């Protein structure tokens, strides 16, 4: 029964894949299309993996999308001001780390609910992104050639090219997976998620860990923001905004597949891929984009609801 619940989402995913494969026999299950999907989804994947880190503690970060936008415009503004590529990248990543740490201090030190704290910083980061960029898109000659070239490049394997962005997302997955599953740090985060007071009394430095986990998530959001900017060779103050809801949805989808409904790195990957495949398949089937949005939301709810039904009975 427990297994049925865990695999219900995966089975549903399999059926959706099958349906797309039958409906789009020539274009869906091709190597090139799958590679395209992996590239399209890479930014979302990085944010979702980063989100998994705070969600392991039972927390949330709503500010990741705004942070992705902010990191992108910070880097691009520095490029525009004549700074070097490494300087811009470091500044973007540093913004993510500091912004995340700020979230962490609000939550862990001041005890503000993560939902409220990160809702506040979402608005702050978004405002900061507009201030830094003056509300404009930074593009063209202001962006170094090598920055945009990164996203267009990749690793040739056989006749295909594995996109750099996909590889970067894979690296993020590996890092988060090791962090959560194979380090003491990750085990302590799950302990906090399991019972914060018990973890504290068992000697887990809860405040420090919570603050640092938010910093990790902020850094992940910044990485995604830079990937986005590289992909479109430009940066504007709203381009990362859509990432947050999808990232949380991906983690939730993943949780329906994991034991004890915990956020796990590999389960999040499955959630991300599910969202990506749905988007890609429905787009190819020329389903109206409004209807597409409606369907994706309904499918997420169906998955989560089916796992809850299993839980309450079991």
């Amino acid at each position, binding site marked *: 029964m427990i297994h049925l619940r865990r695999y219900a989402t995966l089975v549903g995913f399999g059926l959706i894949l099958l349906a797309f494969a039958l409906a789009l026999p020539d274009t869906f299950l091709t190597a090139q299309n799958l590679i395209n999907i992996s590239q399209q989804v890479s930014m979302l994947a990085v944010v979702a993996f980063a989100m998994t880190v705070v969600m392991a503690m039972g927390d949330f970060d709503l500010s990741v999308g705004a942070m992705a936008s902010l990191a992108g415009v910070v880097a691009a503004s520095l490029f525009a001001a004549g700074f070097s590529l490494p300087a811009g990248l470091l500044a973007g990543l540093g913004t993510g780390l500091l912004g995340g740490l700020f979230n962490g201090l609000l939550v862990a030190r001041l005890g503000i609910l993560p939902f409220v704290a990160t809702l506040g910083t979402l608005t702050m980061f978004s405002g900061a992104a507009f201030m830094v960029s003056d509300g404009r898109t930074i593009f063209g000659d202001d962006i170094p050639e090598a920055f945009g070239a990164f996203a267009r490049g990749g690793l040739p394997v056989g006749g295909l090219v594995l996109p750099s962005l996909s590889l970067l997302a894979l690296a993020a997955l590996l890092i988060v997976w090791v962090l959560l599953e*194979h*380090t*003491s*740090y*990750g*085990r*302590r985060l*799950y*302990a906090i998620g*399991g*019972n914060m*007071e*018990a*973890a*504290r*009394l*068992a*000697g*887990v*430095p809860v405040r420090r860990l919570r603050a640092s986990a938010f910093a990790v998530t902020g850094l992940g959001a910044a990485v995604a923001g830079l990937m986005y900017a590289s992909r479109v060779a430009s940066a504007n103050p709203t381009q990362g905004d859509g990432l947050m809801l999808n990232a949380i949805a991906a983690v939730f989808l993943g949780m329906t597949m994991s034991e*004890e409904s*915990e956020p796990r790195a590999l389960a999040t990957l499955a959630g991300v891929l599910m969202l990506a495949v749905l988007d890609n398949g429905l787009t190819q089937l020329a389903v109206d984009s409004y209807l597409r949005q409606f369907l994706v939301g309904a499918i997420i709810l169906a998955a989560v609801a089916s796992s809850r039904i299993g839980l309450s009975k079991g």
Partner: protein
Amino acid sequence: MLLSIRGLDKSFGGTPALSDVALDLRAGEVHALMGENGAGKSTLIRVLAGVSPADRMDARLDGAPLVLGSPADAARAGFRFVHQELNIVPTLSVAENIFLGRSLPRRLGAAVDWRRLNRMAGDALGRFGLSHIDPRQKAGRLGTGDRMLMRLASMLVSGDTEPRLFVMDEPTAALTHAESERLFAVIRDLRARGAAILYVSHRLDEVMALADRVTVLRDGRRVLTAAMAETGRAGIIRAMTGRDVTEAHPRRAAPARAGTVCRLEDVSAGRLSGLSFELGTGEILGVAGLENAGQSDLLHLLLGDGGRISGRAEVADAALPRSPSQAWGRGVAFVPRERRREGLMLGRSIVANTVLPHLGRLSVLGLARKRLETDESRRLAQALRLRHRTLAQPVRELSGGNQQKVVLARATLDAPKLLLLDEPTRGVDVGAREDIYATIRSLAAQGTGILLASTDLPELIGLSDRILILRDGRQVGLVATQGLDPEGLLSLIYGEARGAHE
């Protein structure tokens, strides 16, 4: 006779909790219900409340047969319950809380008539002489005592049935002396109106001053019902502790004191004061007192979770730890009082729960060594005779006693210097209890200094070398257990003089 119960049996999973219990309550009396922890008081209250119906019971209300199969039955019979944890809505006003769940007086059929509501609430409070509570203020701003009085006032106005019986479970546990006095006045008032009050408390002085009659339970049986005037303090204590349990706790040889693991000199912190004691290696120091007399506060203090102190404190050859994380790092281990709330991650595995404080030592460069974690957990599971299916199963699936063993396994994994135990056998069955005692003794034999807080007096006397006595957070005694019996210890806890609950 208002309520008369005969032949009440109740068992949980084959273990009898109440056997052939009888209880008679008269209208217009305060009836004390006493007994040690686990004697069956809570079960009896739950039966009366209809929360867990009896297996067999002959109950009569005013001589007519009474069925208590659900909380609604109890409410219809006019039974009202006051628990320590009060159901109030802190963000609503006192008046709204008093009329919670009833329709509020309205104006033009829709808008709440606040003025009338407040006046009605004021009347309800006024019946108890509680004019100091403003019906308009938020209930959350009231002190614990006033919240309880507010609840009592609300019971008099709510429901269609006139309240006949008030059951109060440790109502004064969290009250100040003045608040308690006010509550007693209300109780006497209720009695004068003809209600029966079943009063559960560990505080003997309070009970003797307040109650007309007393019923004592021991091991799920009624051992005494008598008029308070005919029963002395000694009689009640004898009835409560009657069993001869010292055989279950073979006396240990006094430990050789090789060193000190903990030393306090005139320490005060929060509600704790006057703490002065030394705990030697291999020594078991019991901590005794009434419910909530500061036992948990003392253990939390030594765990670095107690805030600022005055006086000198030394733990494990260093200053008082500043945080639980620092304490564990120095070899201080802790078994909290509420294992589900403060101890366990119920959804996580036995291994994850066991190794949590020791992850640093069990890892290399931050990478967890799962094989080693499992091996260590298995070693402890065998030593503690943990009943489990697999070490990967979530602790939620274990029984209470086995969950407690997991918390104890966590605390003993690394042979701590100082072990802090807060009610380590609370809600634990007899078999598991023996395994836990064996572990505690073997740790002491290896040199661990142990602080054992327990309200189970035979357990405390059986395990401890010396016993520290707390009353309202103050250290009032430190006695050797040699030659001490539960009766003697209980009178030390209550204090010799009457009216010691100042």
